[in-house]
């Protein structure tokens, strides 16, 4: 046992002291935020360029006046020219587009937009909306209806979402759950791939360094394998905890500024009362606060350990079977496919039917359950026994998979210079 501890310690320190680990832990979140900011900035530059749009209004109602210069667009109002002349002029002057408001007998007949570009849906809709609104108002006025009265009598209620317990949510709630579950599932997948690969590389390194035989003459190969997987997982947990800690600080900062109590009990009646007057933004923050964050965190931790141990066992077996990293390709498919499957099931099935048959089945299959169950959790309404059963299946399968992996590992680490294939691996399992 002492020796297992020694191995865990060495593996852990070796990973944590590694420059890549330090960079990944501290730089990658900064990089992530940086990329988000960069995208935001690039989008803002993109929208900084003003485009020139010609407007030819042939009606008597001066629809052209609706289009005034704004941040993004500059409107050139054409007067007294024909449609053909306007098209030609716009093209010649290299305008972004031409808005043509045609009339029949002085009344609005058709509206057209000429452009060689593909204008955004939102932009076109806003033009339609502005013109239609004014035309409707004109019609009403022409029919002798008082606009003020209509405005006063118009009803515009927004649907307020809440659950049966009376908890208010924003319409964004579903998206927030998807985002939370998706982020957790995706993060878990990344952790499994990154740390699984790390374990695999470390096995290959010991094999190519030829130190492995010296180590296994001092400890049993199974201890080396478990020590390696555990030490690396602790490095993963360290990284995760650092991120949680940094996230916690950021959340604390965010909530202080936005005035939402992110850490109160979601079922708290005070929160509900307060929520009545909340602005939409506050509702969204409230939604985030109402996610089962603690449950998600605890489950993330348990599923990360389980999922990681399951996949890391496979990764160690692969590492032991090959002589260098390029040879691992042929064995990677069985690792990547279930992970991808889990993510796809998560994004396509869980989001539509979080408790549908497919989502439920995949949240029990050990290779996919860590990701799929994590994605289901934010939607709530999962009985504790469901999670317990899924975890039990996961942890039970680890024992089986680890035993098979250990068989391959113990033989593979002492095999040099032999190209291994699936048939060979099957033979090793039977030695």
């Amino acid at each position, binding site marked *: 046992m002492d*020796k297992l501890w*020694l*191995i865990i310690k*060495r593996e852990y320190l*070796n990973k944590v002291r590694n420059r890549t680990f330090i960079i990944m832990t501290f730089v990658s979140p900064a990089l992530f935020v940086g990329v988000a900011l960069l995208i935001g900035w690039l989008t803002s530059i993109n929208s900084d360029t003003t485009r020139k749009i010609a407007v030819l209004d042939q009606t008597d109602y001066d629809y052209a006046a609706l289009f005034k210069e704004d941040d993004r667009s500059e409107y050139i109002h054409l007067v007294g020219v024909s449609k053909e002349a306007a098209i030609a002029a716009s093209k010649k002057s290299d305008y972004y587009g031409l808005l043509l408001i045609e009339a029949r007998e002085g009344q609005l007949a058709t509206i057209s937009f000429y452009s060689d570009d593909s204008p955004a849906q939102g932009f076109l809709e806003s033009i339609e909306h502005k013109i239609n609104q004014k035309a409707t108002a004109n019609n009403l006025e022409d029919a002798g209806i008082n606009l003020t009265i209509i405005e006063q009598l118009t009803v515009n209620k927004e649907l307020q979402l809440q659950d049966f317990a009376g908890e208010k949510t924003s319409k964004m709630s579903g998206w927030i759950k998807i985002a939370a579950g998706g982020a957790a599932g995706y993060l878990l997948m990344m952790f499994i791939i990154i740390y699984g690969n790390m374990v695999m590389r470390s096995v290959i390194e*010991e094999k190519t*360094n*030829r*130190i492995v*035989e*010296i*180590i*296994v*003459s*001092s*400890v*049993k*190969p199974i201890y080396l394998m478990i020590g390696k997987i555990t030490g690396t997982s602790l490095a993963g947990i360290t990284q995760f905890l650092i991120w949680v800690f940094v996230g916690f600080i950021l959340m604390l900062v965010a909530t202080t500024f936005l005035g939402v109590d992110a850490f109160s009990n979601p079922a708290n009646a005070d929160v509900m009362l307060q929520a009545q007057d909340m602005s939409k933004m506050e509702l969204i923050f409230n939604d985030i606060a109402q996610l089962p964050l603690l449950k998600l965190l605890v489950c993330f931790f348990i599923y990360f350990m389980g999922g990681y141990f399951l996949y890391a066992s496979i990764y160690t077996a692969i590492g032991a079977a090959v002589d260098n990293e390029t040879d691992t390709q042929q064995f990677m498919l069985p690792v990547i496919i279930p992970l991808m499957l889990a993510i796809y099931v998560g994004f396509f099935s869980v989001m539509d039917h979080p408790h549908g048959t497919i989502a439920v089945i995949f949240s029990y299959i050990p290779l996919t359950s860590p990701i799929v169950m994590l994605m289901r959790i934010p939607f709530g309404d999962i009985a504790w026994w469901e999670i317990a059963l899924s975890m039990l299946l996961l942890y039970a399968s680890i024992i089986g998979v680890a035993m098979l992996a250990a068989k391959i590992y113990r033989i593979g680490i*002492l095999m*040099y210079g032999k190209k291994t294939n699936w048939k060979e691996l099957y*033979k090793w399992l*039977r*030695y």
Partner: protein
Amino acid sequence: MGNALEAIHIKKDYGNYTALNDVSISVPKGSVYGLLGPNGAGKTSLIRIINQITMPDEGHILLNGERLQPRHIEDIGYMPEERGLYKSMKVGEQCIYLAQLKGLTTTQAKERLNYWFERFEIQDWWNKKLQELSKGMAQKVQFIVTVMHEPSLLIFDEPFSGFDPVNANRIKEEILKLRDDGATIIFSTHRMESVEEMCDHIALIHKSNLVLEGKLSEIKQHYRDRNYAVSLICENIDMAFQQIPSEFNPQPIVLSGLDHTLDVQIKIPKEVDVSIALNRLLQLGELTHFSEVIPSVNDIFIKTVQQHG
């Protein structure tokens, strides 16, 4: 003196392939025991079983008379043929780690390592990473790692492969010193000249079977085949060569007889007395050399391997 190690009817199969077939050896305490055999004969398989890296399918190992147990790992030092160390780890830290795996405490490890680092005059390597050392330097560290826990049994698999002659000699001296200090050495090799120099006992494994085992001097005695080296000075070398009785199966050692010297190896048949044979040779010319050819380990090795196909 008893045996430091006994392997009793060891059998090991890998699938359909038999790596060791009923192999039994006895390694006397304080001996340098050569484990010989062509590549793929099963030497490494046997060594791995002694090191408890793999388990035998049948048979068992006794270390100092006791059935091999996990705790015995600490009493064995093993330098595998395929060897290396962590490249990016510091030398000192790495040695302490490996010493701890062999059951030493950190303090003990430091003490022993200080001794060895001083002995090899490599104290300033302590904080260097292994990748900064040359191959020869790394091999010294490798040797220290093998012996630092002062095991009673040391196993070296092809210990001199990859060592330059100076270092190989240094390591040879150190191995013999360890033997003098009471350790038992098993070393596996197919380099026969080092066996000749160092071993007092040998075992020859061929195609998974033990084909020869015992004290080197006794084996040599057994393999004496009445072969003699003869040098004769005579007028006509060719004629003299033809006059050697054919039952002596003469084999010329040097074909060119520039100074009228005929160098030849003969095999005297059992029914012919050596003195009679000597008399006959004396009649052919002036006999300047007559000595028995004791078979070298290499000869014995080749002969035995050929005999067993």
